[in-house]
């Protein structure tokens, strides 16, 4: 049976100006690669992987070029297209040493109408991405699924209401790209392109499973 559904993938950041809660860029790798370019790269790879394995799944990117959108505009792409899934892709950065893969959902206490579905989706995505990176680099860490108020995951902007909440949504922080080992793994190393494809493939698998 063919897998059907509508998936919106949101490559975090973009452009040069901060827009309604969305900064143009956050993390930068030691080799100078910007998070906004890495998010677009992974999102495009996921889109390609889904097109190949689940052609009946409609995949929409919130941006396909180096532009920035407000957090509300990003979520509205899901609302306007009646999306089943919304995944915001990010990379992390802190002190050049912190590591790990984490995912975020909006807290139940802040009115998330489908918290359990969001959490289940987030756990599925975080688990496979962590496993994909762990297979290449044992020093990565499982930072789990957490919750916080995130503008891009606001139910009203996603089109979810208490009565009708079709869109499961989460935000994924793939790794800390300010760490040299991660930069080598994803950007500068000989297998960087393959590793990015493996991560995208893992996300694709999780999204297909979620839609099945």
């Amino acid at each position: 049976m063919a897998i059907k559904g509508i998936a919106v993938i949101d490559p975090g950041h973009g452009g040069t100006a901060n827009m309604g809660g969305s900064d143009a860029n956050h993390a930068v790798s030691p080799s100078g690669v910007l998070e906004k370019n890495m998010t677009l790269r992974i999102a495009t790879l996921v889109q390609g992987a889904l097109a190949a394995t689940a052609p009946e799944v409609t995949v929409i990117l919130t941006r396909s070029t180096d532009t920035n959108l407000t957090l509300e505009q990003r979520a509205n792409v899901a609302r306007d297209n009646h999306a089943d899934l919304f995944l915001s892709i990010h990379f992390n950065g802190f002190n050049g040493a912190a590591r790990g893969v984490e995912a975020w959902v909006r807290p139940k206490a802040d009115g998330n109408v489908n918290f359990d579905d969001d959490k289940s989706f987030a756990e599925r995505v975080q688990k496979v991405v962590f496993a994909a990176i762990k297979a290449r680099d044992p020093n990565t860490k499982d930072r789990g699924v957490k919750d916080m108020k995130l503008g891009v995951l606001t139910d009203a902007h996603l089109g979810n209401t208490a009565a009708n909440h079709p869109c499961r949504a989460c935000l994924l922080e793939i790794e800390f790209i300010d760490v040299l080992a991660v930069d080598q793994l994803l950007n500068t190393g000989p297998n960087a392109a393959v590793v990015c494809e493996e991560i995208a493939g893992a996300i694709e698998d999780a999204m297909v499973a979620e839609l099945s």
Partner: protein
Amino acid sequence: MSRLSPRLTFSALLIAFFSVACSSASKVSVETNYVPVLSTRAHPATRAARGTLKGDFEWAADSFSLNEAVFRWGKFLKAHDPHDGEYGDGFHKLHVDAAKYELMRVYYLLGRIDDGDRLLKQIDPLTLDHYRGTK
């Protein structure tokens, strides 16, 4: 009596000396060098631009004294701690939380217990009040 006076004077001087020494040791000058705990100082060549989340964080972490750290971390939080509690991503929350921990520590080092306690309750690391991203 005349033999005891020098002893008493010496003892009094000794007590006074240790009192002052202990008092000085327990106080931290506002000009004491500041070294961040959670963050690291960025190399000048790779420092992000001021006005950005990362650049302002690095600027605060680069404070030279405790007094300066209070000013800079406070300024960072005023600019980047979301007033509506809505964060942009995990990177944003990580930096805001780290800034609060750094500022809390500086308050305690300066003896500003009430200010430190206020931040500790706001961060709520043990989620005793089921703190979930709201301020």
